[in-house]
Every structure is written in structure tokens, then in C-alpha cells.
């Protein structure tokens, strides 16, 4: 079974704190993603990475950074947490398609989510 594991299910932090959300996958996936989920807004991409030490901004990167030092681990960092970052955070991973002719699983696998509250 594919497993994507997020370090915390619930987290409460104070405004201004530096917050680390960790994600580990065991499927040797190249791609890893961090999404934020808010009611009525669906899932919005914060950052993604297609290789170790590589990162790309998603749709809402402001206030966040990421780190990918090992293939299996992708960390989301809130440099100075603010109340508007209270949300559900979902990590996901998937295979990288190196060629259109290569048939590999295309879906993303998700972690169980971290509900972060910033007070």
C-alpha cells in the first residue's frame, strides 16, 4: 500500500511562531505537493517539488517555504505563522512522467491532512 504520512493530525501554534509540517512518502515518487484546503475554495497548491532540492511555487506561496533534502520527505515551513494560515494542509505525491509514451500511474496519493490552528 502506498503511504503518505504527515507528521501531525492536529496542530495549534501561536502567531509569529515558525511552524514545520512534515510529509514522508514510501513509494519512491518524484513529485511531492503541499495543498491548502479551505471551505468553498477547494484545494489550492502552495508548493511542489519534482526532485530533491527542486521546488516550484504553486498558486498561493506567499508566507510559506518548502524544503526537500531527501526524495521521500517534503517539508512545509511557515516562517512566521499568522491567523490567516489557519487551515487544513494536505501533502501528496505522484510519479513523474518522463515521457508521454511511458504509461505510469498518474494519480496523486494523499496524506491524512494536518489541521493547523494559529492563535
Amino acid at each position, binding site marked *: 500500500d502506498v503511504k503518505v504520512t504527515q507528521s501531525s493530525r492536529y496542530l495549534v501554534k501561536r502567531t509569529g511562531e515558525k511552524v514545520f509540517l512534515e510529509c514522508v512518502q514510501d513509494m519512491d515518487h518524484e513529485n511531492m*505537493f503541499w*495543498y491548502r484546503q479551505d471551505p*468553498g475554495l*477547494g484545494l489550492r497548491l502552495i508548493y511542489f517539488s519534482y526532485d530533491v532540492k527542486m521546488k516550484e511555487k504553486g498558486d498561493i506561496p506567499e508566507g510559506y517555504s518548502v524544503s526537500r533534502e531527501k526524495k521521500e520527505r517534503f517539508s512545509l515551513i511557515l516562517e512566521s505563522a499568522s491567523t490567516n494560515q489557519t487551515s487544513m494542509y494536505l501533502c501528496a505525491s505522484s510519479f513523474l*512522467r518522463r515521457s508521454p509514451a511511458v504509461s505510469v500511474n498518474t*494519480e496523486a496519493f494523499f496524506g491524512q491532512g494536518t489541521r493547523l490552528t494559529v492563535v
Partner: protein
Amino acid sequence: AQTVTQSQPEMSVQEAETVTLSCTYDTSESDYYLFWYKQPPSRQMILVIRQEAYKQQNATENRFSVNFQKAAKSFSLKISDSQLGDAAMYFCAYRGHISNFGNEKLTFGTGTRLTIIP
């Protein structure tokens, strides 16, 4: 940029009946993948069904099937014989086909909350 629209924030259906969830998308690409994901109260996102745009045949998985209309850019999910365990948030998602870094991401709709009435 690709966009995915789910116009039904909430739907309900009687147990054992059939329900259809709507999804439309906008893209300039000719090849891509479409997905329906389910998120039950446990919050774990689960893949329900996948459709490759180059395949004309609609995908089916047991009680779940899609109606893929490429020209209309429509991708609806039909759930037959609805069961209590189908109650969840359902998300439609898009992924580009060509391995162009940046096309690997999934773009999601805003979701439809499905309630099953016993």
C-alpha cells in the same frame, strides 16, 4: 492556466438511488487526465476514478462511472445504488499529460458535499 469548476456545493440522494456530480474544466491542452477524488469525514483523499482524455470510452469502477464530453470540457461522476458510505466531499481534478515540469500538479475544483439520505 487550467481551471476546474464544480457548480454544485452540495447534493443529496436517497440511499440506493443514482446521483450525478458535475464538473467542467478549461484547458488549451489536447491530452490530459481527469480524476474524481473522495474525501470522507476521516479527511483521507481517495481516488475514485480516472479518465485519460485520449480515450473515448468513459471510465467505470463498479458503481462509479463518468460521462466525459471532451468537446464540451465536461466530466461528470455518476454514482449508482448510492450507499451510506458514499457520503463525502467529492473533488474533480485535472492533470496535464505531457511531462512538462509544472504540468505534474493537480488542479482541483471547489468540491461537492454529497449527503446520503437513509
